[in-house]
């Protein structure tokens, strides 16, 4: 608590004034007070003072200044709600100005996604959900046992969670859809990593609907003929300079390819088996 002789107020007293004027909504007076503060670094880094500056900046429509304040100082948790409100409201106002008309719920959602809360005023905890954590827990637990509750079970769930059956149905439907989408994306990712397959088989989870997703299995396997692959593989290996050390058995086996087209896996195994073992020998 440093006392500045010419100014006359301690840091604690300055903070008190800031709080009083903020709570009272006397933002003009607050602005004037802040302006009268001496240029002491310590003072201007005080959290109550910063909060006050943020509130005044918002009040004046000085949003650039507001964002700068909110992003450049770490605020303590009990101030987070108020400051989050300022951040969001300011962004909504700016978005509304661009759009030329008021923002609906979806519009605001998009704004929140586009301008996520900075960690200086947010602890990273998920934003609030529509349903209570307890209800969501019940639904999640049920889902792991059976993702397809019957109408009667849905009614029971509704009672247990305090939701309507429609809400329960929607929750399950959305959960299944999102799980499928997540799985598909997962598989697509691993395929991209392994085979370098082109993207023609990719299905975005948002495209189409249930029908595509439910009969998904076949759609995703690449339409290649396995025997062509294995021949290519062999050829690839043999033209490789390092392949000169391979034994003649590999070559000999290749010539019998044509008689074994119907069994791609066996072919691959038998051809590759000796090759790979010799590769291993070479390696060691």
């Amino acid at each position, binding site marked *: 608590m440093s006392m500045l002789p010419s100014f006359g107020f301690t840091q604690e007293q300055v903070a008190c004034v800031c709080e009083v*004027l903020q709570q009272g909504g006397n933002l003009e007076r607050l602005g004037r007070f802040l302006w009268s503060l001496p240029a002491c670094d310590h003072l201007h880094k005080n959290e109550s003072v910063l909060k006050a500056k943020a509130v005044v900046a918002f009040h004046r429509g000085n949003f650039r200044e507001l964002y700068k304040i909110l992003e450049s100082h770490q605020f303590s948790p009990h101030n987070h709600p108020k400051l989050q409100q300022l951040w969001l409201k300011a962004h909504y106002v700016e978005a509304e100005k661009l759009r030329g008309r008021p923002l609906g719920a979806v519009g605001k959602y998009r704004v929140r996604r586009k301008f996520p809360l900075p960690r200086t005023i947010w602890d990273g905890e998920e934003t609030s959900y529509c349903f209570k954590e307890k209800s969501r827990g019940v639904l999640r637990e049920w889902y792991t046992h059976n993702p397809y509750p019957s109408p009667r079970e849905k009614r029971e769930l509704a009672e247990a969670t305090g939701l309507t059956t429609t809400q329960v149905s929607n929750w399950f439907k959305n959960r299944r859809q999102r799980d499928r989408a997540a799985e598909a994306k997962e598989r697509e990712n691993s395929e991209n990593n392994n085979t370098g397959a082109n993207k023609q088989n990719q299905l975005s989870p948002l495209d189409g609907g249930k029908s595509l997703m439910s009969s998904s299995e076949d759609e995703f396997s690449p339409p290649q003929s396995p025997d062509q692959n294995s021949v290519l593989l062999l050829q690839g290996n043999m033209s490789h300079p390092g392949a000169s050390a391979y034994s003649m058995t590999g070559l000999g086996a290749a010539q019998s390819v044509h008689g074994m087209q119907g069994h791609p896996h066996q072919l691959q195994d038998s051809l590759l088996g000796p090759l790979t073992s010799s590769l291993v020998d070479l390696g060691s």
Partner: protein
Amino acid sequence: AGMALPTGESDQDETNRKNPPGKAKGKAKKSDGSQSTDNDLERIFLWDLDETIIIFHSLLTGSFAQKFGKDPATVLNLGLQMEELIFELADTHLFFNDLEECDQVHVDDVASDDNGQDLSNYSFSSDGFSGPSAGGGPGSTSTVQGGVEWMRKLAFRYRRLKEIYNGFKGNVGGLLSPMKRDLLLRLRSEIETITDAWLSTALKSLLLIQGRCMNVLVTTTQLVPALAKVLLYGLGDVFPVENIYSATKIGKESCFERIISRFGNKVTYVVIGDGRDEEFAAKQHNMPFWRISSHGDLISLHQALELDFL
């Protein structure tokens, strides 16, 4: 919040200054429990008594003498004399003997047990309120404690207390003998000197506040002795009796809660005290706190009020 207008004249605090100063005082006459409908009431200042407005307790403990480098014996002597006056007033005129064991938080707390009868010829000394207490066996003439009749007599006392307070808040000397009156004046003057005009400095802020908003007292002293202190230190005019709360039984946090339910939460509350209980209670209710630990803090408070910062 919306966008600000460039000149700022629309700010709500500007309109307050146009209101006549006496208004806040008038509203204070409402009894506890009824919501203040005063739209202009912007701020309520919740004051601690001892070591914030008056210096009393620390005179007795020696901490004041130690902290401010005064002669301990002189200080102690002043404290003791003041204490004697306080309890004499409390006993003689404020029913402290009767009420010590059942003192209330607020002077209107038992008003609902009152029947409103005329008390001008009522004899408090012989109404059987206090005597050998409760349950009285055969031949006992005292009232059963806690019974309906006893509660009514209790209510009479608090009603009379209010009357006395209101009647003598500007002139406590009227309650004392001429000798005690002179003693009081002398004591107050000496305490003022030795505390470097602590009380008069505090009074400047109290008066300024009274002019535009409201003072409330929340003290850890019991209610009756608190009233005695307020009267003897000449603070009766800045604290209406309905604005005095004793936190002895329920603590400051609960008192603050009662005050919020009385005045609502559209008002901004400011807590002023020397630390400890009031600081914590203020934090619990998210009220800004102005600490008084030295003379300078009282001066800064006054400055902040004058400059319209608070």
